[in-house]
């Protein structure tokens, strides 16, 4: 698969602190790559190096398979941390600045504003926009020149749930309809998991894991939750011990049994219990989410 962004042994040192430590990562074409890490983990520093705002101390960066970054950065749209817009200008004027900068015909402005839902802002200055509108305007600015790759650093920071949803829908639309590859960093992991197709976890400057959406789903499957009548709990655990030969389970305070074996064999467990006259109210895979997984991964690396 073609890598839109590839870093090899990328490092950045600020005086004595290694903010990014030999990161080798690949954002594949068509991905919505969720870049996850705690505050100060090195996400923004890595993104700054990728877009040319900071110089790497060591390592290399490739964009679209080439190390000629100056030329290839034309194909990259960026929104880093907060919306970089002119507050005293209208949305149209903000895009006009970018069109002039990139020698793009100003005819595209209406279409872009329409795409991000800002076509009706008229003469309203950007300083009077809500934070969500400012963020959408910043994304609109990054879309000038039809980028093939969008880098969004914390685009949902400070937004209300409605604003977060708007940005998510917009990113999905750009990825699916315009085939734009997206690298997005966010703290809102629940939201990111609705969006990303691949993930990278960075911790203390090091990329500790890269995985796909499917791999995450697999890794989050941690067991089976069995809900039986409270009078049957003891009988049920006896069957697990005797018939399934497992003691790898716990009984929750609510009487629910959490079985940590046979994760892929929910049907078989159900069949065994039913054969022994246990009425199973519900049985399902116990799935943790991206947030739990992230905490589990970085938890052991303090």
């Amino acid at each position, binding site marked *: 698969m073609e890598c839109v962004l590839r870093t090899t042994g990328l490092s950045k040192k600020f005086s004595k602190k290694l903010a990014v430590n030999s990161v080798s990562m690949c954002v594949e074409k068509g991905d919505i790559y969720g870049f996850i890490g705690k505050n100060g983990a090195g996400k923004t520093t890595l993104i700054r190096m990728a877009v*040319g705002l900071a110089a790497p101390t060591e390592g290399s960066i490739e964009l679209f398979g080439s190390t000629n970054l*100056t030329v290839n950065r034309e194909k*990259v749209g960026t929104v880093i941390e907060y919306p*970089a817009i*002119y507050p005293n200008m209208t949305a149209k004027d903000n895009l006009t600045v970018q069109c*002039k900068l*990139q*020698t793009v015909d100003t005819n595209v402005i209406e279409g872009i504003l329409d795409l991000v839902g800002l076509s009706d802002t008229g003469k309203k200055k950007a300083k009077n926009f809500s934070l969500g509108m400012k963020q959408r305007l910043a994304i609109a600015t990054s879309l000038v020149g039809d980028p093939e790759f969008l880098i969004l650093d914390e685009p949902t920071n400070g937004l209300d749930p409605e604003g977060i949803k708007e940005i998510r829908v917009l990113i999905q639309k750009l990825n699916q309809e315009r085939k734009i590859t997206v690298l997005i960093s966010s703290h809102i992991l629940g939201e990111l998991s609705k969006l990303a197709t691949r993930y990278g976890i960075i911790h203390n400057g090091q990329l500790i894991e890269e995985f796909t959406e499917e791999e995450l789903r697999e890794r989050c499957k941690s067991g089976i939750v069995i809900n039986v009548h409270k009078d049957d709990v003891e009988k049920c655990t006896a069957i697990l011990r005797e018939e399934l030969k497992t003691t790898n389970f716990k009984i929750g305070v609510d009487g629910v049994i959490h079985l940590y074996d046979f994760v892929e064999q929910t049907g078989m467990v159900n069949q065994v219990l039913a054969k022994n006259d246990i009425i199973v109210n519900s049985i399902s895979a116990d799935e943790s989410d991206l947030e739990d997984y992230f905490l589990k991964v970085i938890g052991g690396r303090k």
Partner: protein
Amino acid sequence: MKSLMASDLFKLKKGKYLYGCTIGSVLLRIFIIIIMYSVLQMDDSSSASGYEILSKAIGSGSALLVSIAISIFVGAEFGFGTIKNSATKAFSRTRIYMSKLLVSFIATICILLITAVVYVLLGTIVFGWGTPPDGYILDAIAKMGVQIYLNLALSSMFVMVAILIRQSAGSIAINICILQFAGLVAQICSLAFDKLFHLTIEFSKYLPSTIISDTVDVEKLTSELTIRGLVAGAVIIVLTTAFGIFSLQKRDIK
């Protein structure tokens, strides 16, 4: 470079600060005309005319307002974070700097020329044009040329300061301090050189503001004054531009 400048010129056109500073500079000259008129009313031995104002029309009186306009123009790019929009595209930092510098020069020339035109026109309306001596107009135009050039040297310094400070308010403060205290620092340097090395160097002679004042005060522009102005201006422009570009290239953009 052309696209960078087109974009910067558009921002300049949309920025109210340029109009505000131009109006401020014009108002300052109107105030000077009023003062001159009041003095002439009280003192019959003094005289003024439109052609005399011509050689003083540029001067260094607009430098303060030019420094404010440039500090806002350049500093705001860092304050709003919009510098990232060009720095993440296919432009080298040198080009980004040169575009800001050239557009600042254009802004400086606009402020100076509009102010000069209003100053001369109003002076002519109030005092009459008068009868200039032979060769006066050409000499006045040459003086204006040197004055504009030295104002551009000051603008080059304002751009460098704004690039170093990376915020509007701080840049305005530093640039105003430079304008106000450069003469004092030059005098201290002269004293120090005299005390330490027994060398008599009049540093203040090479300050743009001093040379501009000299061009206003002398009856006729001398070649010594012209060369001093051209060399001092060139040194300032080259040094500040080199240092500004170096700083922009070496420091990360936040």
